[in-house]
């Protein structure tokens, strides 16, 4: 039992080292890099859409990439309110999403910023 536990401990530490150096590998990352997430999403009637209404309560959004995926989810789910206007003041991104006849790909936020 002792040798099994020691082997598990070594594997555990080695995995944590890998996760520390390899981007995208889940590890003990806790609020270490919260990006500025200022944004605005409006529907075709220019009403503001709060993306938090589409997340579990208390979900801590820390990553701009994930924010954009949630925006795409909202656009896809609420097609009746499309097209959507999505703005990120911090990056200068200003796009229209879900335009008529654009299909599912029309909701994806394509941006290199």
């Amino acid at each position, binding site marked *: 039992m002792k040798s099994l536990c020691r082997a598990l401990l070594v594997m*555990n530490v080695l995995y944590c080292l890998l996760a520390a150096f390899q981007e995208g590998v889940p*590890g003990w*990352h806790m*609020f270490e890099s*919260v990006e500025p*997430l200022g944004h605005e999403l409006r529907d075709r009637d220019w009403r503001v859409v709060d993306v938090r209404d589409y997340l579990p309560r*208390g979900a801590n959004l*820390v990553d701009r990439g994930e924010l954009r995926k949630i925006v795409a989810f909202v656009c896809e789910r609420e097609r009746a309110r499309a097209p959507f206007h999505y703005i990120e003041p911090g990056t200068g991104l200003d796009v229209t999403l879900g335009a008529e006849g654009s299909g599912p790909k029309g909701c994806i936020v394509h941006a290199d910023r």
Partner: protein
Amino acid sequence: MPTAEGLRARLRTLERFDAHAVIRFLRLFGAALVVDVVTEVMAGVWHVHTGKLYPWRNLGIVPLYPASVLAIEWALRAAAGLMLVMGARHAKVLSAAVRIAAPGLFIAVLERYSNHGVLLFLIAFFLTLAPLDVTAPSFGERDQPALGLVRAQLAIVYVFSAANKLAHGFAGGHSLSNLFGSALPQGATQVLSVLVIATELALPLVLLRWPRVGLAGVVAMHVGFAALVPGVASFGLAMIAMAVLFAAPSPSRRSSLALPG
């Protein structure tokens, strides 16, 4: 030097545990499991599985299962937690509880990845490795390597969390500024950020040398986190549970819960 000698003596008995502390750890861990389920219910995770909400933290390895299966998952995890809270002294109850909790938590992590989910799973998994019987005679005099893994996990979480924060520039305070918005001034977030890193690095050593002081530090830090950041209460409870395990086996009182006769 007495401090160094004390630390060396502590290191020699690193896999020995006080039975009373183990009971408290198991009950707190059980409470963390229950709080985790309650938090998910209150947060509306149900609607993640009905498709109404974004598939939050789904890793994409296993597709989200229907909400009816989620109800079973929640029931099993909550039952395991309650069994630990109420039956931690009974070896069979404890064994059944961790065997229910570990696979349930593993599936939950695949469905909805979270740090607290991983932590709860690891604790449950470590507890399945060796059957625990805290009422056994001389429990405190025998090595408990699986509990040693649980205690080591606390140090791993704090040290790697601090290291990752240092590597990503967390000490500058911008992450907390972005997290809290204008609720805290920039100067305060910078001080708080440095304090968090320093505390995370110091706590494992303090727990090893001065367990009560360390436990107070862990409680203070996680109560603070829970007050400021939503959804982290079960993580804090699990960390407090592990910190309780640092209590040294006391020679001044019986270290097992064996019944007389």
